[in-house]
């Protein structure tokens, strides 16, 4: 057993650090650190910086223009990016659709769509959840009916993250209403500019325009936009969901969050002394740090197995649950740390030309606390993850 990185891994880490120091724009990392919205242009700029380095496609196989890093390298990169307050890579094209096309897409689909993901031509969004199909995704009702060389799509998707920016949506649709739930689903690629598509923003409780509803009214989709075989979409969807779980522990985010928390707790005072010296608050910080240290090693253990070729099983569900609990706890402590300045509404303090209200680190903390309640809800809620763990372990 050896808990340290190898010489190669350390060299790789240094390379990533040097790249971030040189290429990550300062105004961009400042925005990420302050929890501000980057906008479409900001995300696209970061993607193009990474793509110029050949790193945007870091998880993709070489045959598709990818860097094909192993799990340890990916972890090092994610960790360093979080520590440097780099924007996250928007996952829909790169880590969700990409792997599905690599494995199940036709040659034509691979040749057409994959380069456009990398060069930023297409912004993708995900059409999975529906109002009646959340945790029970397979109960989805949006239907696609074959009409000549088109499918005609009718229905509604929801929680479509950043759908307002999207050029394309990958959708799960029901193509066989008579089959068993999981067996009548297909995976379709739909141009967001097709007539009959309407995107309506959903305002979240922290005021952010992050997710949308997408309505389909007789939307005609060419049959060549079907991925793989008709009625086999559930298989592809499950494959995609396992990819959605890479990096799911969010160790880098938690570590960056904990650093930020400590920084704030050194500045804030309670009874005239730094908050970080307050025994109750110090105990809270210590508790979450102890949990994070252990989870970080759990994460590395699983990554190490994965790079040895073992597919992660229930461990990724475990990491999702523990990882989100830790991130949410840090968000909660950050909210408490800023005291009464948690009360101003973020949009007044973060956007526009207004003078900031209170210390500049206080602006987004409540919004982040409320917004990150989503972490334990999306990508398979923590209840679903616990169900998976128990089912697998009890052999059900």
């Amino acid at each position, binding site marked *: 057993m050896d808990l340290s990185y190898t010489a190669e891994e350390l060299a790789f880490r240094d390379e990533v650090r040097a790249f971030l120091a040189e290429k990550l724009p300062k105004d961009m990392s400042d925005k990420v650190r302050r929890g501000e919205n980057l906008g479409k242009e900001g995300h696209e700029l970061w993607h193009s910086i990474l793509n110029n380095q050949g790193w945007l496609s870091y998880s993709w196989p070489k045959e598709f223009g990818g860097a094909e890093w192993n799990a340890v390298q990916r972890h090092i990169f994610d960790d360093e990016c979080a520590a440097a307050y780099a924007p996250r890579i928007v996952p829909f094209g790169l880590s969700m659709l990409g792997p599905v096309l690599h494995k199940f897409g036709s040659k034509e689909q691979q040749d057409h769509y994959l380069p456009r993901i990398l060069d930023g031509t297409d912004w993708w969004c995900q059409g999975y959840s529906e109002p009646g199909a959340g*945790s029970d995704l397979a109960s989805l009702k949006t239907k696609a009916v074959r009409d000549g060389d088109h499918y005609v799509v009718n229905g509604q998707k*929801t929680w479509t993250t950043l759908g307002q920016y999207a050029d394309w949506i990958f959708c799960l649709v029901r193509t066989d209403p008579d089959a068993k739930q999981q067996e009548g689903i297909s995976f379709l690629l739909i141009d967001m500019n097709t007539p009959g598509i309407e995107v309506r923003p959903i305002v979240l*409780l922290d005021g952010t325009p992050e997710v949308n509803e997408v309505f389909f009214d007789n939307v005609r989709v060419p049959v060549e936009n079907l991925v793989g075989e008709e009625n086999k979409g559930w298989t592809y969807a499950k494959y995609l969901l396992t990819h959605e779980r890479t990096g799911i522990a969010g160790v880098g985010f938690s570590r960056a969050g904990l650093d930020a928390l400590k920084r704030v707790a050194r500045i804030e005072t309670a009874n*005239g002394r730094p908050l970080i010296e307050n025994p109750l608050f110090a105990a809270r910080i210590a508790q979450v740090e102890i949990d994070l240290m252990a989870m970080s090693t759990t994460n590395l253990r699983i990554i190490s197995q994965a790079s040895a070729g073992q597919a992660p099983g229930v461990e990724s569900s475990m990491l999702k649950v523990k990882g989100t609990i830790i991130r949410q706890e840090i968000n909660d402590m950050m909210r*408490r740390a800023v005291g*009464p300045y948690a*009360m*101003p509404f973020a949009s007044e303090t973060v956007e526009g030309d207004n003078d900031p209200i209170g210390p500049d680190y206080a602006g987004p903390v409540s*919004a982040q606390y*409320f917004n990150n309640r989503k972490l334990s809800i999306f990508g398979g809620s923590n209840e679903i993850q616990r169900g998976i763990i128990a089912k697998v372990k009890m052999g059900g």
Partner: protein
Amino acid sequence: MNFDLTEERQMLQDTLRRFLSDRYTTTARNEIIESDAGISTEIWNELAELGVIGALFTEEQGGFGGAGFDIATVFEELGRAGVVEPFLDTAVLGGGLITALGNASQTALIDDVIAGGLHLALAHGEPASRYDLSRVEATAKVDGDEIVLNGRKAVVINAEAAGYLIVSAREGGGAFDKDGISLFLVPTGTTGLTLQGYAMMSGGRAAEVTLDDVRLPVSARLGAAGAGYGALVDTVARANVALAAETMGAMETATELTREYLVTRKQFGRPIGTFQALAHRYSDLLIELEQARSAVTNAAGNLESTDRDLQIAAARNLMARVGRLVAEESIQMHGGIAMTQEYELAHIAKRIVMTDHRFGDADYHLERFIDLSAA
């Protein structure tokens, strides 16, 4: 022993609950929150007419209540409906300090407050004071028959709507001393007073207040020079009962919304409440809600007792812990829908959690409790 509300309080509760469930819908409230003023004058006036403000003052102050259980009754209902109008700021804090310290001409303002015609705001907390009530760095200096105020006040809730700010400033002592703090009634139009207003996360508005050589007649002082701290502590005790009761009301709504969702939302072909994993967590919320109800009862019932501060620290600590649990678990058991602005629970959860940031969070009140129990 009798834990029932008196007939008068029961009537007040019924009236208030009926009015708010008719008029204070999620849509109506979201419109109020998005308006420039952030609060509704119409709702304010109608609630004043129903006696909501009068219930927070004693008969000799011009009201018909004013006891701990009056405060708890009113604020439980305001909390249930997620009301954003500043009854705490205008009536409990502002009105409370004026009745505690004011002379005849100052207390004459209370009639107008009870009738709904005058708003007040407490400008006490400062950028670095967090929840420490004695930390005041703003200064007051006598200059002939005038007083000159200088300093900064943080997150002054309802400042923009207020006719007067009740400003704390130091006439003696050091930054943390209890002695030397005076309170002043400052008309909001006074030269040298600047408000930087903003909306708040859980509705309503606040402002950063700058006092730059604000000149007032000496008669603007509330009570004796340097002797405002005791009244502040008493008034904040009443505010803490109100906040605890408001949080309890909000928790009642959160758990009821969760119950409705658990029995109606179907996934995997059955109501999600039939999954034991959720059913048990829902039951835990109800168990904690009863704890919360008792904590509020303890605080309200001890408002005039020697045990007051200990009971209030206990109640606010418990409400902060249980409040966070109820808010987070209710959101979690709903899933995505509870994350949306247009769903009732989103606002209710924000009210519950943001209460943590007024007059002390769970840790602050735990420390208070430890200190008071050791004393």
